[in-house]
């Protein structure tokens, strides 16, 4: 009868299952980013320097960041608000039940429908010869003549909302479910009107979720490339498009700067994911 022996401190077998994961992530996720970070700190003569980051004040770069941030904020706030009202409508607004599952499935599809097909669909709708443009012409309104164009800031905003709103809906529906009916009844029982309940109880409880998801939406728009590329080619000076151009040819005339721009994007995305996680954890604490 063998006595129990203390197992060796490091057993290869214990780690076997996760080794492929770490190796793969190292090769294709972490490694590349580390290389980017390193090269962004590399000076022309090979030493380490922060010059590339100082160069981020280059007008092209600043403009691209600015535009990307503005469009991400716009679509995050608009998408967030519309998504919130839509989620409210199907869960608590008294609509028939099938609408909710229909909306959930549709949101799953629409939030993944970015890129070329989405851009194409909107070109056929609001492009120069799009169906809606034609409809407006039929009733005498020339929207392109009036200055509207799909290939612009607002055009891209309209297109981005197609996947931003569903993303908000998908995250917010479970959160709205978490609003316990008991809270509403307790508030009612204590004399509150529906408006008072929303103002003092429901909205404060939902706020972390709403805010957190808007931040997620921000990141989502900020990092989007395919849709913008498919819709505008290189017309709009967005940060992602700028990086794309830098890949094909050194449009910034400064390879180090290219790396810095990419790392700048990573920082902003990381920040938004961190903020989202913090708010999401708070929201889960209250909404379970």
């Amino acid at each position, binding site marked *: 009868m063998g006595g129990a022996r203390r197992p060796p401190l490091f057993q290869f077998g214990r780690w076997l299952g996760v080794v492929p994961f770490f190796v793969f992530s190292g090769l294709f996720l972490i490694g590349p980013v580390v290389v980017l970070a390193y090269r962004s700190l590399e000076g022309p003569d090979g030493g380490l320097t922060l010059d590339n980051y100082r160069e981020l004040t280059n007008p092209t770069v600043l403009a691209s960041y600015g535009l990307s941030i503005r469009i991400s904020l716009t679509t995050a706030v608009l998408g967030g608000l519309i998504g919130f009202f839509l989620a409210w409508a199907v869960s608590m607004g008294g609509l028939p039940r099938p609408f909710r599952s229909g909306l959930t499935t549709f949101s799953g599809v629409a939030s993944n429908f970015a890129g070329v097909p989405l851009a194409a669909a909107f070109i056929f709708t609001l492009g120069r010869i799009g169906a809606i443009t034609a409809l407006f012409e039929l009733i005498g309104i020339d929207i392109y003549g009036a200055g509207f164009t799909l290939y612009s800031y607002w055009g891209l905003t309209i297109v981005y909302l197609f996947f931003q709103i569903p993303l908000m809906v998908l995250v917010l529906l479970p959160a709205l479910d978490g609003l*316990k009916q*008991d*809270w509403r*009844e*307790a*508030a*009612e*029982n*204590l*004399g*509150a*009107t529906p408006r*008072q309940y929303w103002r*003092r*109880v429901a909205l*404060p*409880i939902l706020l972390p979720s709403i805010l957190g998801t808007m931040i997620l939406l921000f990141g989502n728009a900020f990092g989007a490339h395919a849709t913008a590329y498919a819709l505008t080619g290189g017309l709009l000076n967005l940060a992602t498009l700028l990086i794309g151009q830098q890949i094909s040819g050194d449009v910034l005339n400064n390879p180090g700067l290219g790396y810095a721009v990419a790392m700048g994007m990573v920082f902003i995305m990381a920040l938004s994911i961190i903020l989202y996680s913090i708010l999401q954890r708070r929201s889960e*604490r*209250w909404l379970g």
Partner: protein
Amino acid sequence: MTGFLSLENVRKEFNGVVAVESFNLEVEPGEFVSFLGPSGCGKTTTLRMVAGFEPPTSGTIRLAGEDVTYAKANERNIGMVFQSYALFPNMTVADNIAFGLRVRKEEGAARGERVAELLDLIHLPDKAKAYPNELSGGQQQRVALARALAIRPQLLLLDEPLSALDAKIRDDLRAEIRRIQRQLNITTIYVTHDQEEALALSDRVVVMSKGQIEQVGEPFEIYNNPATGFVASFVGQLNRLPVTVVDPALGRVRVGRSEIRTTSLIESPAGAEVSLMMRPEEVTLDAEEENVLEGTVESVTFLGSIVRVQVAVDGGRLTADLFNERLLVLPVAGDATQLSFPSHACWVMV
């Protein structure tokens, strides 16, 4: 029509299913009334109708003389405590308690005083700035109680408030609730499926089953003079012996080869098959009382203060609950034994 709270012929239907039927009750001011029954008996539905969360299908509900049947839930000045506490997680204990006062636009100073008063009442004076998720279940429920009482309601409703708590906390809180209720002399309705709770807390108990009232009465009455078979078996342990009526006028029935006499009324004729009921605590393992039966011990369960002995007798089975004694010699399964009980301890039901 003289009750502080009166429900007249209240009925509730959901999609053709009748949840509550012919509910009639008068509650006196300051009275503590329990609605007791199994899940689905309609007790919570009735409570929610009183609270205003469900409109009755028909019937009237009056509070202090006023018809509140269809009044809005936020206009009834009734305090409610939920099974899940329902404390607002985004507010501190003090803010939760003050919520009803804030809604009524009471002044800050008056509000603060009232909150402090209630925190004292529930014995949690130093928890004012804590958040609900920092409190234990029992503490949360006390805060929920304070929140309901803050608005000085005319009526207090509690929907199974102790179900989600551990046994020990439940006992402590049960006593707290009764103490506070007596101190404030507030009319209270308490919904529970736990008959021990209902018996211990109430001035009167309303036993419900399948949407109807089975019996209304004081705990002692309900327990010792159950009106229906349901009440008899739902409240407390019950012995049920199938017997044949021998002589209704003399109260004699037969089980197996033995005859039993009961002092309660027998309405069935001789020869009818009926049930003889009695409480286990009235049965003893000796031949001291008037009715004696022979039997064999089937099982002995030691419950602490009670020793529960199941005995097979000719024609059925009886349970005897004996008080524990330190020098008690426990019977053993298989022993032959005698059982006896007084004739006034048993009654007959069809």
